[in-house]
């Protein structure tokens, strides 16, 4: 086919006439076609994104049990108001926040440092860059199982190490702070490399000339990082903060698997909102209440992301005004 096509005589050059006006059918297609090309995405989104979202909102207004899904009892906003008076919900909200901070902040700081190092010219750079992504490629189940062993109270490696330097064994499962640190460690381990690669990509879009100019002005590597890299990375950092915030709000797998309890420990000490949702829905089978929690989480994320955007816009406006 290609051979035949390439052997075909070249078309005679056209006269420099104005291009023919497209027919009405073509014009209609031209206006419609973008929508048609986008349609598959939006169809799928409607089926697997929008519909569940709306259906969840619908379910959240009823009392529904998993074992008897046929009997739906209208509750109005009852499921939501019940959450306001639900001590476990507030505990979960607080845990989600503290674990979110404990995991996101060190994670992003370490990712920045790691990306800065990976940006140097050195041997095996590609290998190292791929290697930092390995924790992300590991399944959360496998990773947390290993960490659960490490953080064991009686036979864990971490406590063994602490013992060597004379610190009493820590009960990583039952202590409130200890358990949250353990959960955060897994999150940090899994996501630092991922964020580092994103930062690295951002760093590479910063023009070399800026560094050269800074070097010529006598700026050290450290100052270059602060005065060239960081400002250049601002949009990337904003992106990672938003993504990490969403991830932290939905945190579920790590706490569930690390200690193997859907109630987040004996006194809910590391129960996140995600876990609480799961406990209500699939531990106690109260689907209506679980749906209400899901919606509260959704709204929470919208608010958090909105706040982020607001702060970012105010900052960039300030910059522009400077």
């Amino acid at each position: 086919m290609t051979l035949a096509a390439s052997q075909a005589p070249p078309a005679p050059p056209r006269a420099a006439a104005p291009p023919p006006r497209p027919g009405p059918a073509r014009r209609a297609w031209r206006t419609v076609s973008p929508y048609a090309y986008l349609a598959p995405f939006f169809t799928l989104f409607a089926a697997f994104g929008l519909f569940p979202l709306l259906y969840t909102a619908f379910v959240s207004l009823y009392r529904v049990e998993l074992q008897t899904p046929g009997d739906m009892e209208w509750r109005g906003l009852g499921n939501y108001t019940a959450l306001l008076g639900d001590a476990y919900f507030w505990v979960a909200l607080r845990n989600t926040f503290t674990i979110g901070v404990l995991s996101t902040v060190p994670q992003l700081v370490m990712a920045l440092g790691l990306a800065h190092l990976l940006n140097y010219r050195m041997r095996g750079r590609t290998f190292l860059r791929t290697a930092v992504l390995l924790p992300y490629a590991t399944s959360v189940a496998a990773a947390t199982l290993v960490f659960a062993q490490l953080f064991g109270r009686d036979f864990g490696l971490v406590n063994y190490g602490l013992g060597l330097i004379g610190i009493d064994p820590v009960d990583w499962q039952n202590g409130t702070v200890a358990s949250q640190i353990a959960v955060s460690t897994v999150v940090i381990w899994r996501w630092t490399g991922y964020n580092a690669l994103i930062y690295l990509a951002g760093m590479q879009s910063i023009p070399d000339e800026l560094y050269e100019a800074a070097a010529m002005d006598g700026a050290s590597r450290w100052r270059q990082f602060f005065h060239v890299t960081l400002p250049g990375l601002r949009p990337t950092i904003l992106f990672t903060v938003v993504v990490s915030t969403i991830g932290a709000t939905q945190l579920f797998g790590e706490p569930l698997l690390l200690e193997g309890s859907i109630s987040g420990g004996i006194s809910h000490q590391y129960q996140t909102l995600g876990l609480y949702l799961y406990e209500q829905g699939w531990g106690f089978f109260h689907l209506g209440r679980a749906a209400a929690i899901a919606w509260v989480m959704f709204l929470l994320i919208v608010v958090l992301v909105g706040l982020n955007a607001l702060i970012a816009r105010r900052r960039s406006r300030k910059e522009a005004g400077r």
Partner: protein
Amino acid sequence: MTVTRAAKRTAARLGAVVLTGALLAACGSSTDGASGDGAGGEVTITVDLFGSFGYKEAGLYAEYEKLHPGVTIKQTDTEDEADYWKSLQTRLAGGGGLADVQGIEVGRIASVAKEQAERFEDLRKYGADALEEQFAPAKWAAATGGGGEVLGLGTDVGPEALCYRADLFKQAGLPTDREELAKKWATWDGYLELGKQYKAKAPGKHAWIDSVGSLYSIMIGQEKERYYDASGKLIWQDNPALRTAWDHSVEAARSGLSAKLDQWSPQWNQAFAAGSFATIPCPAWMLGYIKGQAGDAGKGKWDVAALPGGAGNWGGSYLAVPKAARHKKEAYELIKWLTAPEQQTRLFEKQGNFPSATGAIEKVAGAKDAYFSGAPIGKIFGDAAKAAPVQVLGVHDQNIAQQITNALSEVERKGTSPEEAWSNAKKGVENTLG
């Protein structure tokens, strides 16, 4: 020059890719896609269980496959029953991903019989009515639905005893003879008293009992009415028997007798091999679990004695066939065979799961177990099974028990005051029942 550099780069990339691949392969879940129902009448029966039913270990699957050429049995197993039940409920609600045979714990059978009868096969369809007199009446009645449907066949019951490490007892200067011990701990107070003596002399970090959770579970197993009364009313808050079990558990926790472990957790499993505790309340099915976790090294160190405070029952299970199963007829044939007296007898001798079939109970009366220092387990568990109360089963038994156990663990591990823990338990149960 450029060529070698490019080659180096390629090699580095390749290395990275290979490393990633290896890691992914190592972490990937073992999904076995096809259930392999080929031609020629070949059937794969899937069995989904929790804890340790011990069929595979006792060689029963292998024998069934030999007796029925063309049948392959595939078993999946979740250690923690609470996890198992969650996932089973989700799959039942969705109607997909169900095995041909599903195990049901006795604490859940009321929920199956009262709320979910339409999701499981009525085994009368396959002639299960004929099996009724094989089983203890209470066992049979619990799995019977409102319309007389037979929703599951009983596998085992959980007569209770106390397993202990005779070697650790000896080191602490306690008597090791099971008869003598049974006398000394005729009551729970006697048992805790002995525990305090043990603690005073015990070598190293060996606790008296694995967890107060298991202590509570075994004590509540001695009661006829626990969370509900016979009319189905919630009574747990005012139930004096429950309160007694609670108080004893609190005392054990506050006297520091417990190794503070979570039952069914990895740490708990490790503690069997490490010998972190000297006694563990053991329903008959626990024997197989101890053997599995403590391994060959524990052989002859363990022993079994009668339970303080009289006979009781903890656990025991059923095998059921969900409506959405693929091979219902074959599944029924399998569970009928597995729960027949002969197989129940063999399962007890190999794994310790005590038979629920009436014919099998006499057959095992003389059984002894070499792993447990030759303890007459047939007699100990047989006596307990005969004397155990017929329990009132409620829909939310298991969930309520979980909340109470959690609260007790707070006393045990965080030093929470019993009053606060009790109110936490109340809050937890309210939250559960919603």
